[in-house]
């Protein structure tokens, strides 16, 4: 299938729209789950939803998605509330409670699923599509249901923006201000449940938690503002959903749900590596630059001490003398040449180095700034950075 045809393809349009909605809702909600350090709540909820789907089918004998998803909402919600009840009333910690609910509910769901499949009149209920997801089974009506769920999530975030912000940052302070913290927590959990159920048919209970965690984790890398983080997380979710849908329709036998998860994992990887400030590459470069600065400062101090000892700025010293412990000759050369290019050091003969007047002044101001640094740093918030130059 060529690309222009894709846009017209009805099935693909439905699938892509569904996948984008799923990315949108889980991306927005995931921000709060990740910031609350409850990333795995999504995992527990999605697994807990399975018995709800099976029970809904057993009770109604209907294959209608909306009905089955209502069962998923009920079971996921029940599981999540059980988790919070366990952590509040017993000594069991959050991670254990999550693991407990996840495995108990999921196990029960699998038992029910096997039971359904062995029944003669089951006639392929197709419930296993919720296990690993089956985007191709998405109908237009399913997408409409997903849109309603997504809309509810977005509306809640817009209306309760400041409430959720404070709830995540400092719930105790929220209570002191008189906010209804328990109610807000229940609303937040309900939103996570909704977002997960929106994605169940596409991605499945097993992989759904990735859609809650990954876009938000990637978004956190790029920004220090909550509003931007929510927007970016939503964007990443939508991007992953759309590209997953398109990629899997271009390639035969490529499943949509897992492809979406792989794309969003790729986004996380890129973000962890490359994001400014928080990315690994950035950190590596920064610590390298800082090491260089420290070396240059040390070298300059050493030269200044020597100059004072000799009482002259004309006296040169060979680089072998200037080698501090653990420095290779190349490193010494490198630092000296760097300092020479900034005018703090000059070469007075073959392998003879001396500090300049500018270098002496620099050492003096650095020492003074260091002394005052611990106080003035708090005033200006500059963190007492005294070495602006040195190495690029």
């Amino acid at each position, binding site marked *: 299938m060529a690309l222009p045809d894709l846009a017209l393809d009805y099935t693909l349009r439905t699938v892509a729209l569904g996948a984008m909605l799923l990315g949108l809702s889980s991306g927005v909600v995931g921000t709060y789950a990740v910031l609350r350090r409850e990333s795995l709540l999504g995992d527990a909820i999605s697994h807990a939803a399975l018995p709800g789907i099976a029970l809904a089918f057993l009770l109604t004998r209907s294959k209608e998605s909306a009905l089955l998803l209502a069962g998923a909402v009920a079971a996921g919600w029940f599981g999540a509330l059980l988790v919070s009840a366990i952590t509040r009333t017993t000594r069991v910690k959050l991670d254990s409670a999550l693991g407990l609910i996840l495995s108990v509910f999921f196990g029960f769901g699998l038992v029910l699923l096997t039971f359904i499949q062995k029944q003669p009149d089951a006639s392929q209920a197709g419930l296993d599509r919720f296990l690993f997801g089956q985007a191709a089974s998405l109908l237009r009506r399913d997408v409409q249901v997903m849109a309603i769920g997504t809309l509810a999530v977005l509306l809640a975030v817009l209306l309760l923006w400041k409430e959720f912000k404070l709830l995540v940052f400092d719930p105790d302070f*929220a*209570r002191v201000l008189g906010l209804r913290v328990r109610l807000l927590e229940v609303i937040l959990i309900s939103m996570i449940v909704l977002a997960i159920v929106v994605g169940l048919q596409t991605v499945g209970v097993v992989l759904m938690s990735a859609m809650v965690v990954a876009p938000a984790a990637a978004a956190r890398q790029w920004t*220090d503002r909550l509003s931007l983080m929510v927007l970016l997380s939503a964007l990443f979710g939508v991007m992953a959903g759309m590209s997953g849908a398109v990629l899997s329709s271009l390639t035969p036998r490529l499943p949509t749900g897992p492809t979406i998860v792989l794309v969003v994992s790729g986004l996380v990887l890129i973000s962890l590596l490359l994001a400014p400030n928080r990315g690994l590459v950035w950190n590596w470069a920064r610590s390298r630059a800082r090491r260089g600065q420290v070396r240059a400062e040390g070298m300059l101090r050493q030269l200044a001490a020597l100059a004072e000892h000799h009482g002259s700025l004309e006296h040169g010293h060979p680089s072998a003398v200037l080698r501090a412990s653990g420095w290779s000759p190349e490193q010494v050369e490198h630092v000296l040449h760097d300092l020479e290019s900034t005018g703090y050091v000059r070469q007075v003969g073959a392998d003879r180095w001396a500090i300049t007047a500018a270098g002496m002044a620099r050492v003096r101001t650095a020492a003074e700034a260091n002394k005052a640094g611990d106080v003035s740093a708090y*005033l200006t918030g500059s963190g007492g950075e005294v070495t602006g130059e040195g190495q690029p």
Partner: protein
Amino acid sequence: MADRHNEGVPAVAVQDLTVAYRERPALWDVDLTVPSGVLLAIVGPNGAGKTTLLKAILGLLRPVAGQVLVFGEPVEQQRRRISYVPQRGSVDWDFPASVLDVVMMGTYGELGWIRRPGRRERERALAALDQVGMRELSDRQISQLSGGQQQRVFLARALVQAADIYLMDEPFQGVDALTERAIVMLLQQLRAQGKTVIAVHHDLQTVPEYFDWVMLLNVRRIACGPVAQVFNEHNLRLTYGGRFAMAAFAREVEETAPTVVTPDRSSSGGGARGAA
């Protein structure tokens, strides 16, 4: 603005308060009456229940027994008049927010559901930042603040609330000299405005200088009253245990200022060693 209608009614009245975590009591039958307009320090060894007492007054945890009244009413009905400066370490400072964002949170209570803070709230937040000397840093990411700056952000957030009672949990803990001076000035301003401050405090040396009243607490209330009347060696010995010696402790304080680990009864802390 201290409320003149409440003249004579204590700012905080705690009666027979008992709080337990599991079986272990954290507070046992504690009474406390704090007159309006007083700066009160709560002191006591580690595990004495100081933070627990603050949280119980704020209604953040449910006591086993006893009652708390704020200006003569349950705290739920006085939310607007009571503010809280929690311990710095109680939140994750890597949260994506700026200094101004956090300070504006102090206005969320009065705004009520759904309404967002606007220009007026912003102005008030900036004014509060001015009071703690942090206005220039209003756009800074909170993850980039020093410990003292974090403390001042929390103070500003409480100031924005324009409450009558301020509960502070170790406001001087691990802050730099500059922040300590800023907090002391702030306490004096609050006193001048007739506000009430109840602060958990660790540095015994500065109690007489910074506070009017002191409560000595070790699960039970040992003593409470004006500093001149109750802050003496006898009461301190009762609070911190027999090994406590004022002279030895004072020496330790000078050596390890500004923050001092009080001699814990179970461990052989510096103070206890000095006393031996």
